[in-house]
Protein backbone atom coordinates (compact mmCIF):
# COMPACT_ATOMS: atom_id res chain seq x y z
CA UNK A 1 0.00 0.00 0.00
CA UNK A 2 1.36 3.42 -0.92
CA UNK A 3 2.15 5.72 1.97
CA UNK A 4 -0.07 8.53 0.68
CA UNK A 5 -2.80 8.03 -1.90
CA UNK A 6 -4.53 10.81 -3.78
CA UNK A 7 -6.82 10.64 -6.80
CA UNK A 8 -5.01 12.50 -9.60
CA UNK A 9 -8.22 13.68 -11.28
CA UNK A 10 -8.74 15.78 -13.24
CA UNK A 11 -11.73 17.11 -11.36
CA UNK A 12 -13.89 19.66 -13.19
CA UNK A 13 -16.56 21.65 -11.35
CA UNK A 14 -18.57 24.77 -12.20
CA UNK A 15 -17.65 28.10 -10.68
CA UNK A 16 -19.28 28.62 -7.29
CA UNK A 17 -19.47 24.91 -6.45
CA UNK A 18 -18.05 23.35 -3.31
CA UNK A 19 -14.97 21.27 -4.05
CA UNK A 20 -13.96 18.28 -1.98
CA UNK A 21 -10.43 16.90 -2.26
CA UNK A 22 -9.07 14.07 -0.18
CA UNK A 23 -6.18 11.77 0.60
CA UNK A 24 -5.73 8.53 2.45
CA UNK A 25 -2.59 7.36 4.14
CA UNK A 26 -1.20 4.24 5.72
CA UNK A 27 1.28 5.47 8.33
CA UNK A 28 -0.52 5.91 11.65
CA UNK A 29 2.44 7.93 12.96
CA UNK A 30 1.66 10.88 10.68
CA UNK A 31 0.76 13.89 12.81
CA UNK A 32 1.28 16.93 10.59
CA UNK A 33 -1.05 17.34 7.63
CA UNK A 34 -0.76 19.97 4.94
CA UNK A 35 -2.40 21.02 1.71
CA UNK A 36 -0.35 22.71 -0.96
CA UNK A 37 -1.47 24.28 -4.22
CA UNK A 38 0.71 24.07 -7.30
CA UNK A 39 0.16 26.04 -10.45
CA UNK A 40 1.65 24.75 -13.67
CA UNK A 41 5.46 24.96 -13.72
CA UNK A 42 5.56 26.62 -10.30
CA UNK A 43 6.62 25.48 -6.85
CA UNK A 44 4.01 24.24 -4.35
CA UNK A 45 2.46 26.89 -2.10
CA UNK A 46 1.20 26.07 1.39
CA UNK A 47 -2.56 26.50 1.80
CA UNK A 48 -3.45 24.81 5.04
CA UNK A 49 -1.60 23.20 7.92
CA UNK A 50 -3.11 21.08 10.67
CA UNK A 51 -1.67 19.11 13.51
CA UNK A 52 -3.32 15.82 14.48
CA UNK A 53 -7.10 15.47 14.11
CA UNK A 54 -9.82 18.04 13.69
CA UNK A 55 -10.91 20.85 11.42
CA UNK A 56 -9.29 24.11 10.41
CA UNK A 57 -10.88 26.90 8.44
CA UNK A 58 -9.21 29.74 6.57
CA UNK A 59 -11.46 31.86 4.40
CA UNK A 60 -12.98 29.67 1.69
CA UNK A 61 -10.79 26.70 2.64
CA UNK A 62 -11.49 24.06 5.28
CA UNK A 63 -9.13 21.21 6.12
CA UNK A 64 -10.31 18.10 7.96
CA UNK A 65 -8.26 15.30 9.45
CA UNK A 66 -9.74 11.98 10.56
CA UNK A 67 -6.89 10.00 12.02
CA UNK A 68 -9.07 7.05 12.92
CA UNK A 69 -9.84 6.54 9.23
CA UNK A 70 -6.44 7.81 8.02
CA UNK A 71 -8.28 10.26 5.80
CA UNK A 72 -7.81 13.97 5.19
CA UNK A 73 -9.92 16.40 3.19
CA UNK A 74 -9.78 19.89 1.80
CA UNK A 75 -13.00 21.74 1.02
CA UNK A 76 -13.11 24.84 -1.16
CA UNK A 77 -16.28 26.92 -0.96
CA UNK A 78 -17.46 29.31 -3.66
CA UNK A 79 -14.84 27.99 -6.05
CA UNK A 80 -13.28 30.45 -8.49
CA UNK A 81 -11.52 29.92 -11.84
CA UNK A 82 -8.33 31.10 -10.12
CA UNK A 83 -8.58 28.02 -7.89
CA UNK A 84 -7.75 25.89 -10.93
CA UNK A 85 -4.48 24.20 -10.00
CA UNK A 86 -3.08 20.93 -8.69
CA UNK A 87 -3.72 20.35 -4.99
CA UNK A 88 -1.19 18.28 -3.10
CA UNK A 89 -1.74 16.72 0.27
CA UNK A 90 1.36 16.29 2.40
CA UNK A 91 2.10 14.81 5.77
CA UNK A 92 4.87 13.90 8.16
CA UNK A 93 5.58 11.86 11.23
CA UNK A 94 5.93 13.80 14.46
CA UNK A 95 9.23 12.08 15.17
CA UNK A 96 10.53 12.61 11.63
CA UNK A 97 8.90 15.90 10.86
CA UNK A 98 11.60 16.84 8.38
CA UNK A 99 10.57 14.11 5.96
CA UNK A 100 7.39 15.45 4.41
CA UNK A 101 5.67 13.06 2.04
CA UNK A 102 3.46 14.38 -0.74
CA UNK A 103 0.50 12.82 -2.48
CA UNK A 104 0.51 12.74 -6.24
CA UNK A 105 -1.83 15.73 -6.45
CA UNK A 106 -5.35 16.26 -7.79
CA UNK A 107 -5.76 18.49 -10.84
CA UNK A 108 -8.73 20.79 -10.36
CA UNK A 109 -10.46 22.78 -13.09
CA UNK A 110 -13.06 25.39 -12.15
CA UNK A 111 -15.25 26.07 -15.15
CA UNK A 112 -16.43 29.71 -15.55
Amino acid at each position, binding site marked *: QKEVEQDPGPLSVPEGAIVSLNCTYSNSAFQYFMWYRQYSR*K*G*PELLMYTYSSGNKEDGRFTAQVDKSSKYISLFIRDSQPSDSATY*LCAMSDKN*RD*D*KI*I*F*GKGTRLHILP
Partner: protein
Amino acid sequence: EPEVTQTPSHQVTQMGQEVILRCVPISNHLYFYWYRQILGQKVEFLVSFYNNEISEKSEIFDDQFSVERPDGSNFTLKIRSTKLEDSAMYFCASRGTIAGELFFGEGSRLTVL
Protein backbone atom coordinates in the same frame (compact mmCIF):
# COMPACT_ATOMS: atom_id res chain seq x y z
CA GLU B 1 7.42 39.20 0.75
CA PRO B 2 10.48 37.00 1.39
CA GLU B 3 10.92 34.15 -1.04
CA VAL B 4 13.12 31.20 -1.90
CA THR B 5 15.11 31.78 -5.06
CA GLN B 6 16.65 29.11 -7.24
CA THR B 7 19.19 29.17 -10.05
CA PRO B 8 19.40 28.19 -12.80
CA SER B 9 15.79 28.04 -13.89
CA HIS B 10 16.71 25.52 -16.57
CA GLN B 11 19.87 23.53 -17.14
CA VAL B 12 20.64 21.13 -19.96
CA THR B 13 23.54 18.77 -19.44
CA GLN B 14 25.09 15.68 -20.93
CA MET B 15 24.80 12.34 -19.15
CA GLY B 16 27.75 11.82 -16.81
CA GLN B 17 28.33 15.51 -16.18
CA GLU B 18 28.24 17.14 -12.76
CA VAL B 19 25.48 19.63 -12.00
CA ILE B 20 25.10 22.09 -9.14
CA LEU B 21 21.71 23.59 -8.41
CA ARG B 22 21.65 26.64 -6.20
CA CYS B 23 19.10 27.97 -3.75
CA VAL B 24 18.87 31.02 -1.53
CA PRO B 25 16.42 30.15 1.28
CA ILE B 26 14.42 32.73 3.21
CA SER B 27 16.93 34.56 5.37
CA ASN B 28 15.76 33.66 8.88
CA HIS B 29 14.91 30.05 8.08
CA LEU B 30 17.02 27.24 9.50
CA TYR B 31 15.59 24.14 7.82
CA PHE B 32 16.29 23.45 4.17
CA TYR B 33 15.02 20.86 1.72
CA TRP B 34 15.40 19.54 -1.76
CA TYR B 35 12.53 17.85 -3.58
CA ARG B 36 12.23 16.70 -7.14
CA GLN B 37 9.29 16.26 -9.48
CA ILE B 38 9.60 14.17 -12.60
CA LEU B 39 7.21 15.43 -15.27
CA GLY B 40 3.67 14.31 -14.51
CA GLN B 41 4.64 12.62 -11.26
CA LYS B 42 4.55 13.42 -7.57
CA VAL B 43 6.77 15.75 -5.63
CA GLU B 44 9.40 13.46 -4.09
CA PHE B 45 11.43 14.15 -0.96
CA LEU B 46 15.19 14.02 -1.45
CA VAL B 47 16.84 15.49 1.63
CA SER B 48 16.43 17.81 4.58
CA PHE B 49 19.22 19.82 6.16
CA TYR B 50 19.48 21.49 9.54
CA ASN B 51 22.34 22.80 11.63
CA ASN B 52 24.84 22.11 8.86
CA GLU B 53 24.01 18.46 8.48
CA ILE B 54 21.54 16.17 6.77
CA SER B 55 18.60 15.42 9.07
CA GLU B 56 16.68 13.10 6.73
CA LYS B 57 17.24 11.64 3.30
CA SER B 58 15.27 9.37 1.02
CA GLU B 59 16.40 6.27 -0.81
CA ILE B 60 16.63 8.39 -3.95
CA PHE B 61 19.38 10.47 -2.34
CA ASP B 62 22.25 8.09 -3.02
CA ASP B 63 25.99 8.68 -3.24
CA GLN B 64 25.75 10.68 -6.44
CA PHE B 65 23.88 13.44 -4.58
CA SER B 66 25.28 15.84 -2.03
CA VAL B 67 24.13 19.04 -0.36
CA GLU B 68 26.07 21.90 1.05
CA ARG B 69 25.56 25.25 2.70
CA PRO B 70 28.78 26.90 1.62
CA ASP B 71 28.02 30.26 3.21
CA GLY B 72 25.31 31.95 5.23
CA SER B 73 22.89 32.33 2.37
CA ASN B 74 23.24 29.59 -0.25
CA PHE B 75 22.12 25.97 -0.18
CA THR B 76 23.26 23.73 -3.03
CA LEU B 77 22.43 20.34 -4.47
CA LYS B 78 25.18 18.61 -6.41
CA ILE B 79 24.62 15.66 -8.71
CA ARG B 80 28.01 14.15 -9.46
CA SER B 81 27.38 12.07 -12.55
CA THR B 82 24.00 12.77 -14.05
CA LYS B 83 21.81 10.04 -15.51
CA LEU B 84 18.94 10.33 -17.94
CA GLU B 85 16.49 9.55 -15.13
CA ASP B 86 17.71 12.59 -13.16
CA SER B 87 15.78 14.78 -15.58
CA ALA B 88 13.21 16.51 -13.42
CA MET B 89 12.20 19.77 -11.76
CA TYR B 90 14.18 20.23 -8.57
CA PHE B 91 12.59 22.32 -5.86
CA CYS B 92 14.34 23.88 -2.93
CA ALA B 93 12.32 24.72 0.17
CA SER B 94 12.96 26.25 3.55
CA ARG B 95 11.01 26.72 6.76
CA GLY B 96 11.10 28.42 10.09
CA THR B 97 9.95 26.86 13.32
CA ILE B 98 6.66 25.34 12.14
CA ALA B 99 7.11 21.78 10.89
CA GLY B 100 5.37 21.33 7.57
CA GLU B 101 5.20 25.01 6.69
CA LEU B 102 7.56 24.84 3.75
CA PHE B 103 8.20 27.69 1.38
CA PHE B 104 9.19 26.48 -2.07
CA GLY B 105 11.21 28.12 -4.78
CA GLU B 106 10.13 28.21 -8.41
CA GLY B 107 12.27 25.19 -9.23
CA SER B 108 15.22 24.35 -11.45
CA ARG B 109 14.43 22.24 -14.46
CA LEU B 110 17.21 19.76 -15.21
CA THR B 111 17.34 18.06 -18.59
CA VAL B 112 19.90 15.29 -19.02
CA LEU B 113 20.67 14.28 -22.60
